[in-house]
């Protein structure tokens, strides 16, 4: 062979030369083996690290739909103009050549002047775009520099949220500056703005990776995270899975090509039990009043409407909260971000007499037995009752009261007398079966549990005055409107204490794949009220009379022809730390229709109202009218019914 022939030859000089060449080539061979085969991974990674930039692409967020698939939160394309700097490189070079100072420049001088030349080009291009779109545009030097140094591989956002006219102009103009591109980004919109805002929650900008996601990216496109409400609780489902694309960059950091590695997986839709029409009707009915309204289906706990007023518009958080809006949201008096239906404690006032009535009737109260309500010496037109040294006023006039009259006139004397006779333990027992003092179990967890005495509270330092106070829904008791809805549902449905149900199902966006739908069937009732049907019947009849007794019903302002509403009104005193009454919270707790197949529970609570019957009953009436209207619509259009899944 070529090599070994030389080594065999009897020419010592050439033999040495041959060995030398052989060793030299062997060294190169070994070196190449080491670099290309053994260290291959190391260099391949270096190569990737320097020429690939990974970009996180957020997925399209799922919608939030009402029970008829009407969108409460959805996405709208937002059209942005982006500028690809890599396409301006020739112009950068030209500008630099044209305007650079003569002579040799030091490195630092170039470092100072070159970005300015680039900026001039970009600014000119942006201004030209602005002229074409009839909108004065400019580029801030600092903004440009930041983008250039930090994310050169990404397009520079020039103009966001183009109007339709601007989009048309941009698309028509053939003379758009080079490197400009129209891009579509989904933008969260809440089509009904303040409607169900508290339930829906809101988003904040957050580009960070989800838990099970690749954690390292060179760049992240803007993404949002849900904070509270449905947006917060179901953030993971709504958010979907972010995708990843890689951008190949050259030695100067300019984009060379793009490649999508994993496409983003769109988030899922969350379908609520809320009915948009009812929700809107309830909100309209509430008007400017501060308070809450709950509409619930007493058969399964479905929440059809959950209103808290005043409300905020979650749209203000997208793309980001402005300082002025933030100031409005943190208003101390209005507190628009508090969900008054679930997040605030309110004294129930007279609506708690339903619980007292349950306890008394179960423990032997004869509903026909009459109790005399003596006139109040300070106010002879109204009755009163003295417990210990304290006189409790009664809004009902003096006279004889049986259960029904006492209920609809909401006689404090009657309920305090009978409540004391029956014993506070029995009342507390019924309240506990209704899970008062505990969270009702809303999936969004924006809830407080209220306050309710526990058995051990009654053993020490509990006096008849406390019981008397409790009997009229004052003192050691606080509830949320949602808890009251659960309570009313139990009366209406024959004693089942339900868990409110807000989310019906989570389903994929786009074509429905049946198996990937997550359904949330109604939970089994949390408990049973455990009272005799007769007791319920007496109370239901009294509640019906509250609305339909034209002479004496306190809730008659809620009357709707054909609805047979059963209600209890309440007016609770709001006291300051010194025990002085400073305000009233007014209640209207109701269900309809009277009978064996109730369909709606409607709770209305207004802060600073005048009385339950005067302030809240008219609001409830409007809500019931809306419900009645919807039923008549559905009856006349059975096809529409069928569409509802």
């Amino acid at each position, binding site marked *: 062979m*070529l*090599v070994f*022939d*030389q080594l065999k*030859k009897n*020419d010592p*000089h*050439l033999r*040495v*030369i*041959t060995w*030398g*060449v052989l060793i*030299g*080539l062997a*060294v*190169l*061979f070994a*070196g*190449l*083996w*080491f*670099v*290309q*085969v053994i*260290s*291959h991974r*190391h*260099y*391949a990674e*270096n*190569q990737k690290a*320097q*020429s690939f930039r990974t970009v996180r692409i957020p997925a399209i967020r799922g919608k939030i739909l009402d029970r008829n698939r009407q969108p409460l939160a959805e996405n709208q394309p937002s059209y942005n103009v982006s500028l690809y700097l890599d396409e301006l490189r020739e112009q950068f070079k030209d500008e630099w050549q044209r305007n650079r100072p003569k002579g040799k420049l030091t490195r630092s001088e170039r470092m100072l002047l070159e970005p300015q030349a680039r900026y001039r080009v970009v600014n000119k291009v942006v201004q030209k775009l602005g002229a074409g779109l009839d909108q004065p545009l400019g580029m801030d030097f600092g903004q440009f520099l930041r983008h250039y140094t930090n994310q050169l591989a990404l397009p520079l956002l020039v103009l966001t949220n183009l109007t339709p006219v601007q989009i048309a102009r941009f698309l028509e103009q053939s003379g758009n500056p080079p490197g400009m591109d129209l891009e579509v980004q989904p933008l969260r919109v809440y089509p009904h703005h303040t409607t169900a805002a508290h339930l829906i929650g809101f988003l904040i900008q957050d580009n960070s990776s989800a838990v099970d996601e690749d954690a390292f990216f060179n760049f992240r496109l803007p993404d949002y995270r849900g904070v509270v409400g449905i947006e917060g609780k179901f953030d993971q489902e709504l958010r979907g899975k972010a995708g990843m694309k890689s951008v*190949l*960059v*050259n*030695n*100067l950091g300019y984009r*060379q090509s793009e490649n999508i590695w994993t496409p983003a997986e769109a988030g899922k839709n969350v379908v609520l039990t809320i009915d948009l029409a009812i929700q809107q009707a309830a909100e309209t009915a509430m008007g400017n009043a501060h308070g809450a309204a709950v509409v619930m289906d007493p058969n399964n706990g479905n929440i059809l409407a959950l209103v808290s007023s005043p409300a905020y518009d979650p749209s203000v958080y997208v793309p980001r909260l402005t300082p002025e809006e933030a100031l409005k949201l943190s208003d101390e008096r209005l507190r628009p971000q508090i969900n008054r239906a679930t997040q605030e404690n309110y004294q129930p006032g007279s609506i708690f007499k339903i619980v007292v009535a349950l306890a008394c009737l179960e423990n032997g109260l004869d509903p026909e037995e009459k109790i005399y309500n003596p006139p109040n010496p300070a106010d002879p037109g109204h009755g009163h009752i003295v417990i210990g040294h304290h006189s409790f006023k009664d809004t009902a006039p003096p006279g004889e009261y049986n259960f029904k009259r006492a209920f609809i006139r909401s006689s404090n004397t009657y309920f305090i007398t009978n409540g004391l006779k029956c014993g506070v333990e029995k009342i507390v027992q019924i309240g506990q079966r209704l899970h008062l003092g505990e969270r009702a179990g809303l999936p969004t967890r924006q809830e407080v549990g209220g306050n309710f005495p526990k058995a051990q509270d009654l053993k020490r330092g509990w006096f008849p005055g406390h019981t008397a106070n409790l009997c009229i829904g004052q003192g050691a008791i606080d509830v949320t409107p949602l808890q009251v809805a659960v309570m009313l549902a139990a009366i209406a449905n024959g004693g089942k204490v339900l868990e409110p149900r807000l989310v019906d199902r989570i389903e994929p966006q786009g074509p429905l794949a049946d198996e990937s739908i997550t359904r949330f069937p109604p939970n089994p009732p949390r408990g049973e009220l455990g009272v005799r049907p007769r007791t319920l019947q007496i109370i239901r009849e009294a509640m019906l009379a509250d609305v339909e007794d034209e002479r004496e019903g306190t809730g008659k302002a809620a009357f709707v022809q054909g609805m047979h509403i059963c209600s209890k009104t309440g007016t609770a005193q709001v006291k300051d730390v010194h025990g002085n009454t400073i305000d009233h919270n007014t209640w209207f707790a109701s269900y309809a229709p009277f009978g064996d197949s109730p369909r709606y529970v409607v709770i209305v609570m207004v802060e600073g109202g005048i009385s339950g019957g005067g302030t809240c009953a008219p609001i409830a009436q409007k809500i019931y009218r809306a419900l009645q209207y919807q039923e008549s619509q559905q009856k006349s259009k059975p096809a529409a019914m069928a569409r509802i899944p």
Partner: protein
Amino acid sequence: MFSIPSKERQPKVEWPLLLAITALMVIGVAFIYSATMANESSGVTSWYRQRFFMQCVWYLFGAIGAGLICLVDYHLLARWSLVAYWATILLLVMVLIPGIGATHGWGARRWIDLGVFQAQPSEFAKLSFIVAMANFLSRPEDELRLRPIFWKALGMTVLPFLLIMKEPDLGSALILLPVGLTMLYVAGIPERYLRNLVGGFALLIALLVANILFAPPHWQIKMEEYQKRRLQVYFGRDFIPANATAAERQDARKQQRNYSYNVDQALISVGSGGMMGKGWRHGTQNALGYLPRAVAHNDFIFSVIAEEKGFMGSVVVLTLYSVVLFTGIRIAGQTRDRLGKLLAVGVVAMFFSHVFINIGMNIRLMPVTGVPLPLLSYGGSSVLCSLIAAGILQNVYIYRRSY
């Protein structure tokens, strides 16, 4: 008597050499194409001004040159060698004169502008040096033992060496030393001379390196700044002065990165090629400009090949060069006269030095010096000289028995 015609029928062409060189030329064109056509601005230039086409033209001229060389018996060539030697020395002097030599903006004055062709006299100096040296050393063996002859031979080596160093072109200059040394050795110069010589050299280089790396600034030998930096980078030393401020330190570190940039990127190119490579024209290092475009097609062409064809490609290239080298050694062994042997050995030494230094520099075995890879690197002078050198080998092969 029957044996004579059979000898005459011996092939006149050394086929392995020719085939290996042809293969190298094909690879050269293919990868110069790959290295230069990735650059988008090259798309506008017309095809006949493209580098890969120019390289073909040089190959053609080189082949013609080699063919012409083969027409003339090397014994006759050798007689003119001194003329050629002094002519190239003259060119090397001329290139240093600012009006004649061109810098091409590199800071080094290496080119003579001939209008269509930028000649690089240092390349031709290597060739004429080999021929002149071979001629000089092909005297009777007794004379080689004489000290003046040894000194003269040394002088013949050092004169072009110094002139090329002056350009400065450290790489080309350094090539002359192993070539001269090998020729002295094969010619049969007494070994003690050579031992002293090599020992002296080693000492000198050690001193030089020590000087650059460790001596305080004003004690250092005057070298071009970039040469010094290259060596410092090669030995992994930073050149941050001890009393530098934070800003200076940062600046120096940045400079350091810039200086070691080419080597780092060449290594990434070679290493990321892996076993099979990324495929012809699919190398990213060059296309994205990480491997500087100014050097990808000449000094760092091997990185492009190694990245796109992987270890297998590197082995093919090495094999082709080893065919050239060992055929050269075989030709040297077949000659009957010392002139032919020295010519062949000189050419082999030259090829080997180029290959070893260039590929070694791509994998950080050697410091970065501007030494082209014979036949693969883009460049007229280099291609012409390599092909003419191959022609000389072929010439020796043809005329080795005709005295």
